[in-house]
């Protein structure tokens, strides 16, 4: 049950904070308090409170990362004060890689061209304006026309530079994607993800709920 903040036991609170830290660490896009709240069976307002608390803690402890609220969700990012180091890391080149998200955006344009920004966004499920601008700026994609439809949206395609960088003669040389059918593992994951009460979750939630029970997860010692 969602509880008001003052009824939140110390254990539950500590466990919820840990869960927030873990989940936000690995999500690629900012994650909404509502979604986090569903997972933890806590009201979004309480999740917001926990996130603010964590963010303040990181700041106070002088961490090199921050927990910030961006585009309606929470994410980890580097502290602005550390930007010079991140920049140096990026400039080293061979070590910094295009993020999986950016590469996916580029791949969608490559295989679905001509395609509008909105269409790419709808496939990726997030706003792609920033990445698309960067890719365009770097000369990997370019405007190739306009949608004849009502909005007359700009349509994008890949450039010669893109082909050269990949060592391809033409777009035809892109590896064929075939009749893409998700593998059995993917389907299973999807089912797992969509199943209303998968075991691990209810287990962990019940652990969250009865605070007195013996708690065995390694993260619990503190």
């Amino acid at each position, binding site marked *: 049950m969602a509880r008001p903040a003052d009824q939140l036991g110390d254990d539950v609170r500590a466990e919820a904070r840990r869960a927030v830290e873990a989940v936000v660490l690995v999500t690629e896009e900012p994650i909404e308090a509502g979604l986090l709240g569903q997972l933890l069976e806590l009201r979004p307002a309480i999740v917001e409170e926990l996130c603010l608390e964590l963010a303040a803690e990181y700041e106070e402890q002088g961490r090199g990362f921050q927990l910030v609220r961006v585009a309606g969700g929470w994410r980890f990012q580097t502290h602005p004060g550390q930007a010079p180091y991140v920049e140096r890391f990026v400039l080293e080149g061979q070590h910094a*890689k295009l993020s999986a998200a950016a590469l996916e955006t580029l791949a969608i344009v490559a295989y679905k061209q001509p395609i509008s920004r909105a269409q790419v966004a709808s496939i990726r499920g997030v706003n792609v304006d920033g990445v698309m601008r960067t890719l365009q700026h770097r000369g990997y994609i370019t405007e190739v026309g306009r949608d004849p439809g*009502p909005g007359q949206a700009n349509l994008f395609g890949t450039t010669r530079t893109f082909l050269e960088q990949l060592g391809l003669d033409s777009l035809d040389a892109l590896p064929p994607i075939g009749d893409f059918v998700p593998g059995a593992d993917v389907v299973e*994951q999807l089912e797992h*993800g969509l199943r209303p009460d998968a075991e691990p979750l209810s287990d962990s939630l019940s652990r969250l709920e009865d605070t007195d029970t013996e708690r065995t997860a390694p993260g619990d010692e503190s």
Partner: protein
Amino acid sequence: MPYEVQTPVFEGPFDLLLHLILQEQVDLYEVSLAAIVDGYLRELGRMEQLELEVASEFLLIAATLVELKSRRLLPVGDDLDLDEELAVWEERDLLLHRLVECKTFKEAAIALQVLAGEAGRSRPRVVGVDDRFLGLMPDLLEGVDAEEVRRAFLRAMVPRPVPRIDLEHVAPIRISVTDAITELVEELPRLGRTTFRDLTSHLVERLQVVVRFLAVLELFKKGLVDLDQPRTFGDIGIVWRGEDGAREVGEVDSLEDLATVDAYDG
């Protein structure tokens, strides 16, 4: 495909032999070569299709076993050729060595699995560099090849799983087809061509998806959208036919009487 697909129990001749010798964890000296040979031959007979390469390995071991068995059955005579005798022992030692090796790696495999299982409980952060730093990269595609682009595309096209969490404890959700139609009329003109999957990818509740589906059907009935579905169970394509969102809202009001019956409590 190698035969192991057909016989999931035994992963090759050594596996079978190990099993036959070690299956009975009883008195050491109960192990009988006769039983092993018989068991081995029986399993061999049971395998219907064998790859030539695999079969020859099985047969080689079977032959060695039979030879060992025959030695055991015959009283040792003085007339035996010493070279022959040595050859048999050599064969046996080789087989023994290979069995021990096979057993060793079987155990090692279990250890690796345990390690992987433990490591699998943690997930590395692979979010990468913030978009705001992308502009600095000397070459975005350094080290990226066409195959990687293909994989990224396939990854992007996999329908995104939506964490599905029991929402009963949260405030009850009231969804109506009317609300869904109003949303769609605002959304669709902006999207141009879209798919039902995309329209509903952010929805958590199955009921919400159902309601959106009914709403889309309503709009289709009214001639405000075109629908197509090239393949059975494939994506349903949706194209807005109305002039623009704002103008159609009035029309939606007239839909309301059709739709209000469908108000649900979540």
